[in-house]
């Protein structure tokens, strides 16, 4: 099924397209520590792809490789059919990749609206002087971008905190604001680093619904890291399982669930 370059159809009838991003034999080392060992997998257009694994498995490192923040010592990253050269993070963003962070990285003193507006920076062409004068071009530009931002605020149901400084928000809402900022960039590929971490059941349900809705409404390809197995199995179309920097499983949630190596990694196994 996965060899079919034309894509596949999910259980709930969504059509998944061709390969958007391909990781080929990635190895990432920090000095003597090997964080990722010879891993290959792909992400297809329109799918929700999960990367799971126990603590220290190298999931966040993998996400950082995808986002271009870490440069692997070996291996190649292919994006939209071409090998990706060495790039700085903002160039990756310009290619249409946006992300959220495991430890929330918002501008705490700024309002929700302003935070989400920063997600639109890639779409603003006026320079600092034009913006200081805020006449003509800068003004129309802000209006256009504000409109896009308001649609996202409506979509994620955060109208009531539009003008609230982020520092005053509870954790669950901050996560949602981060998602809003990432969406504001209208990404082709959205990376979510533990979007449900530290949330209660209700917040997790809300967030799951938003992730599904984003995928459904905007057709955004999503790669996410998550600890909560229930959430991962419900949300994702395909799952990569990592353990100690190695890939130990790859496939649909059902395939992964029945993979002996995966079960061993999660439940532990006696070495005799």
């Amino acid at each position, binding site marked *: 099924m996965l060899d079919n370059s034309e894509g596949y159809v999910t259980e*709930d009838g969504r059509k998944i397209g061709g390969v958007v991003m391909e990781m080929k034999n990635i190895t990432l080392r920090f000095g003597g520590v090997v964080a990722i060992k010879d891993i290959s997998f792909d992400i297809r257009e329109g799918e929700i792809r999960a990367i799971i694994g126990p603590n220290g498995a190298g999931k966040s490192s993998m996400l950082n490789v995808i986002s271009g923040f870490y440069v692997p010592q070996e291996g190649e990253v292919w994006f939209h059919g071409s090998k990706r050269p060495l790039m700085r993070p903002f160039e990756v963003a310009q290619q249409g990749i946006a992300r959220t962070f495991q430890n929330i990285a918002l501008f705490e003193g700024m309002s929700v609206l302003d935070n989400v507006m920063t997600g639109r920076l890639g779409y603003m062409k006026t320079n600092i002087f034009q913006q200081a004068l805020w006449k003509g071009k800068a003004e129309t530009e802000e209006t256009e971008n504000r409109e896009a931002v308001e649609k996202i605020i409506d979509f994620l*149901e955060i*109208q*009531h905190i539009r003008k609230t400084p982020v520092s005053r928000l509870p954790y669950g809402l901050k996560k949602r604001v981060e998602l809003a900022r990432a969406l504001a960039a209208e990404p082709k590929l959205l990376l979510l680093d533990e979007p449900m971490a530290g949330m209660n059941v209700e917040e997790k349900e809300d967030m799951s619904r938003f992730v*599904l*809705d984003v995928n*459904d409404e905007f057709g955004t390809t999503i790669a996410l890291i998550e600890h909560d197995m229930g959430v991962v199995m419900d949300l994702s179309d395909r799952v990569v399982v990592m353990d100690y920097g190695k890939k130990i499983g790859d496939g649909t949630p059902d395939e992964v669930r029945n993979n002996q190596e995966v079960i061993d990694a999660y439940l532990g196994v006696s070495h005799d």
Partner: protein
Amino acid sequence: MGRRERLAQTQSGAEGMHSLPALLHRNATQLGDAPAYREKEFGIWQCWTWAETAQEIRALALGFLEIGVERGDHIAVIGRNRPAHYWSMVAAQMVGAVPVPLYQDAVAEEMTYVMEHCGAKYVVCGDQEQVDKVIEIQEKVHQIKHILYTDKRGMRKYDHSQMNALDDIKAEGSAGHARFDAELDKRIAELTYDDTCVMLYTSGTTGKPKGVVLSNRNVIESAKNSAEFDHLTQNEDILSYLPMAWVGDFIFSIGQAYWCGFCVNCPESADTMMTDLREIGPTYFFAPPRVFETQLTNVMIRMEDAGKLKQRMFHHFMAHAKRVGGLLLDGKPVGFGDKLKYALGNLLVYGPLKDTLGYGRFRVGYTAGEAIGPEIFDFYRSLGINLKQLYGQTEATVFITVQPDGEVRADTVGVPAPDVELKIDDSGEIHYRSPGVFVEYYNNPDSTASTKDAEGWVATGDAGFIEESSGHLRIIDRAKDVGKMADGSMFAPKYVENKLKFYPDILEVVLFGNGKDRCVAFINIDLTAVGNWAERNNVAYGSYQELTANPQVLETIKSHVEAVNKSVAADEMLSGCQVHRFVVLHKELDADDGEMTRTRKVRRGFVEDKFHDIIAALYDGSESVSTTTEVTYEDGRKGSISATLKIVDAPVVPVVQHKVAAE
């Protein structure tokens, strides 16, 4: 805002204004450019004029014809206050169907009964959440033919063979207008003054909900009389945020809005209501006492955080307002110096405060549904906010009694509304007769007959009396809740409960004691007020439940109960109703658990059954009681919480026997 020409409002419906579509047509012709609806979306207030509204509604009605809506079909509407939902109701009427708005926060199980009872074939849903509920209901209720929805989000994957977006059928309706125009005009022309305008389900504190059928006559006459009573014009702005299934919202946002031609403003979401209120600054406003209580609590909490100077200014001028504000509002004579000082206070305190609350343009407003605390009521009145009380029912199309300007008091509910006749029967129950009296309970002739007699008099189920000096009605309690204590003295729970609820710390009270020798009570604390107190006094708590068990909280509540007992003891008739023992409940009474109606009235009998173990413990003298309670989550799943509740003995004032045996 310039005054527009006054609308041609005929004295009766006979001259053509005998249905909502007829009023809509008049408004679209005479007030074409005036705003009819506003809704905040994407951070901006979107506006529709009456002419645009008429087009939208017509397109919707054509869409309804396209999907095959027949005369007499019921169309359920479940969603928050949005123009599209109000339009659906009027469009339903245009094609001869009957709109049935339902409470959107009801769980599927609760909705099933109503859907089955009214036989709704079509359902208009606000969003995916409501659609999911209706799909669940469809497993049991098979007559639902077609689901329509307003918000398209998350709806792509659904089976659309029996489902459409409201916008899509509207578009198809206007595209295919040539085919249906004649049919639609015919159906509009058929509407008479006695056709059903809307069907509203009353939640009822006992038994199954009943479908109250209101005719065009009921709605339009009530709207006309009440609008004339308060001199409402087409220049009013109202904020529609109360449940659409509630009769009040139907009368304010549709009845009066169409009669007067004023503008209905819909908030962006339920959570932004307070911000939207401030932005709109309604001239005509309606809210249950709870909204005013919450606002006042918030003002007081924020004042405590303000600087010294502001605090002193606030308290100084509020004291002055308390003294003369109410008198000024009632047009009573006030000294020149006091007037001058009030004007200064208005500049420095009252004006800014009113602006912050969203009452800067407040001309007239009502509170009803529950008794409002006199302090709270007076607070708003003293600021120059013309807040009044009314007494009404779904069966009366709202209005039974209202307070005229200048005769506003906290302890009465006013004089009979225009065209309303009132009588009190021998048992003290209030009866009324008016043009607003409902047609019938749908498919329930027995209940209709036991509520409304042949001459059109309706029994309210409330006990009350008319004050001789003023002619104002005073409500004692629900007639069936008024009972007798073991010694024969009167038991009127509401009277005591209201006195307790006027304390900001106390959210809800249920008093028991009918047929017993003494009264006991359940108390719910108010999380906002008590939580704020806890924060200030460094009292740590992890949950609502933990806060309710805090000894200091219990002590505070005990002092409130003691004070109320003193005041109750002063009343000869009711001195037996003092609270001897009480518990602070570990959970808030909730409509999802069936303990309250959707309009937040306590269902006494249900609560008594559900917590019988706690009541037993209150009477048998135990010091604490362990209990497990079932709770329902918002999505309908059930769970349970366990707690050990401490029972508190409250000091009571010894009752002096008034009737000493004749010597």
